[in-house]
Each structure stands twice: as structure tokens, then as C-alpha cells.
């Protein structure tokens, strides 16, 4: 076989395809994949919202509900600090929601400004990964996870108020010990995956542009 014969052999695939497709399976498969994609995107969005914000909101609603119920029943003497604590909780949640929204907008901005070619698509993905990596240690990143920590401390505040004992900041800070290590482990795991993606994208760019 010479080069021309090779091209001729290659073209036979257009007349006699390599495979037949079972259309009914493809029709089933494409919407199925679509649903998988939607679920994956949904997990990302709702994971942060409900994992941190949603849980914190529900948690604070329950503990402060208990506190104010106890106050209304006369079991606990009301204090202005209860409202300050509630204000801190609501403020943290609002700040966190704002930080998350700003982060999503910034991420979308990073993904713009690229063309349609495969190289541009790789660069777009690389920019997304770089943006995610750049968020480590940023205040906005910390703010997104702050509601859990604040909810922990405020829960401790409510428990102390219900028990009638004086508030102990040291014990309140200790509740962070349950939250911070989990966040650190998750961050390190996530970072490792992002770095693997980064290496891979850079490798592909290197293959496209060997001179660079």
C-alpha cells in the first residue's frame, strides 16, 4: 500500500461506515447525558449554597428559634447581645452569599474572551483552573465558608444562654476545631485535582505549540 492507496482506503469509510448506530439508544443516551450534566452542574451550585449557606441558615433558624422561644416563655432573661449575635449570623450569611455570587461572576468573566478553536478551548479551561487555584487564601474564599464557623460559635452562644452559664470564648473557639480541619482537607484534595488538570492542559498546549 502506498500513500495514495492509504487515502483511498481511508475514504471507504464514508461509503461503508465503521459502525452502525442504534438510533433508539442514542436518543435515549443524549437526554440521559444531558440530565447527568445538569445534575453535575447542579451539584456544584447547590453543593456550596446548601452545603454551607443552606445548612447555616437552617441551623441558625433552629437555635435562635429555641432561644427566642425560651425568652418568650420567660425561661431566659432577654439581652441585647442576643440580637447582636443574630445580626452577626445574618450578616455573615449575607456576606457569604455576596462573595459566592461575586466569585461566580468573576469565574464567568475569566471564561469569556476566548475563541472557538481547540487551543482556545484549552486556554479557557486553563484560565478557569487558574482562577480556582488563585482563590486559595483569598478573603472572598474564606467568606464563602465562614457561615459554618460562625454558626458553630453562635450555637455555642445559644447553648450557654439556654443553660444560664456565662459565655466562654475559649470553648466557642474550640468549635472551630471541628470545621477548620474538614475545610483544609477538602481544599487540599480539591487543589490536587485542579493541579492535575492544570498539568494536563499545559501538556496539551505544549503539544499544540512545541516551540513555546
Amino acid at each position, binding site marked *: 500500500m502506498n500513500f495514495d492507496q492509504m487515502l483511498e482506503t*481511508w475514504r471507504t*469509510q464514508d461509503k461503508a461506515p465503521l459502525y452502525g*448506530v442504534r438510533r433508539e439508544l*442514542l436518543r435515549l443516551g443524549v437526554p440521559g447525558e*444531558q440530565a447527568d450534566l445538569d445534575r453535575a452542574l447542579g451539584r456544584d451550585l447547590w453543593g456550596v449554597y446548601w452545603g454551607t449557606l443552606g445548612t447555616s441558615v437552617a441551623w441558625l433558624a433552629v437555635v435562635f428559634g429555641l432561644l427566642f422561644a425560651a425568652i418568650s416563655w420567660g425561661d431566659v432573661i432577654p439581652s441585647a447581645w442576643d440580637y447582636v449575635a443574630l445580626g452577626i449570623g445574618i450578616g455573615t450569611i449575607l456576606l457569604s452569599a455576596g462573595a459566592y455570587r461575586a466569585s461566580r461572576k468573576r469565574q464567568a468573566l475569566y471564561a469569556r474572551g476566548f475563541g472557538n478553536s481547540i*487551543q482556545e478551548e484549552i486556554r479557557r479551561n486553563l484560565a478557569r483552573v487558574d482562577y480556582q487555584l488563585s482563590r486559595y487564601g483569598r478573603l472572598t474564599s474564606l467568606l464563602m465558608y465562614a457561615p459554618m464557623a460562625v454558626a458553630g460559635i453562635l450555637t455555642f452562644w445559644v447553648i450557654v444562654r439556654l443553660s444560664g452559664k456565662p459565655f466562654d470564648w475559649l470553648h466557642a473557639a474550640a468549635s472551630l476545631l471541628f470545621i477548620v480541619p474538614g475545610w483544609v482537607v477538602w481544599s487540599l484534595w480539591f487543589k490536587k485535582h485542579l493541579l492535575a488538570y492544570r498539568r494536563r492542559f499545559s501538556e496539551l498546549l505544549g503539544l499544540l505549540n512545541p516551540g513555546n
Partner: protein
Amino acid sequence: MLKAERDRIFEEWMEAHQAILFKVARAYGATHADREDLFQQMALQVWHSIEAFRGEAAVSTWIYQVALNTALAWNRKERKHGQGRQDLEAATGLLVSPASHDPRLEWIYQRIAELDEVNRSLALLMLDGFSYRDMSQILGISESNVGVKINRIKATLVAQLAKESNDEL
């Protein structure tokens, strides 16, 4: 765009250009299960891309671009999970192979599989007769870069053809 309209265009495109997806799936998937998985992923991405298609390029060029892009991303995913699945595992019967294979075609795909992922894309485009300009637009690299790479791929293929000229090929 209405879903029914998108479905209609998808059916039309698949009818006319599914050979592109077969070729890319065959070139990038190591096993039959991998090829089915990749074919399905590419079909999904083609379906998604319909709305973004503005008619600035030929449909075949567009589909090639979407397919190659998906194949490169799919390879990344497979690597992340370690390696491709075994042939019989998870094969859904989506793709049905003909009873007989042309051994020469098999030989070409084996040579393509030996190339790195980017050169594999270029080899497919070259064999399907795309111009350097089209390849440059699809991959986003300069035409001169395409030329250098294509010349190397051709030289490799010609050398391998010469080496095997005494065989039954």
C-alpha cells in the same frame, strides 16, 4: 431554539456526518466500550453546539471541531480515572461493528493511535482532506505550525508504509 427544531437538526447532522464521529471515536478510544462512551459524549456535545452554530464554517468542519474537542477532554477524564474500561465492560450496544474489517484500515488506525493526541487530530483532518487553513482554525494554531506537523506525520506514515511494503498491505 425549540427542542424539536434542535432535535431535527441533530438528526440531519448525524445522518450526514456521523462518519466523522466514528473516525474520531475509533482513533481516540482504545476499546469498544471506550468508543461507545466517546461517541455518546461527542453526540451530546454536537447536540449542545447546534445553538452556537452560526454557519460561518461548513457543518463538517464544525462537527470535527466539536468532536476533537470532546475527544481531547474525554481523554483527560479517562486519564483522571486511571485507564479505559475493558472491552465488554459497560458496552451498551450503541455502536454495531460490521462483520468484516478491512485490515488496511485497521493498520491506519494503529498508526494513528501511535501519535500523540494533537497529531492524532491532525492526521484525521489530513486524511479527510482538510486544508491547512481549516486545520489551523479548528486547532487554533498557525498554518506554518500545521504544515510542520503534517509534514512530520506524512513522513512517519510514508516510512512505515515503506517498511511494511513487503507485507500483505
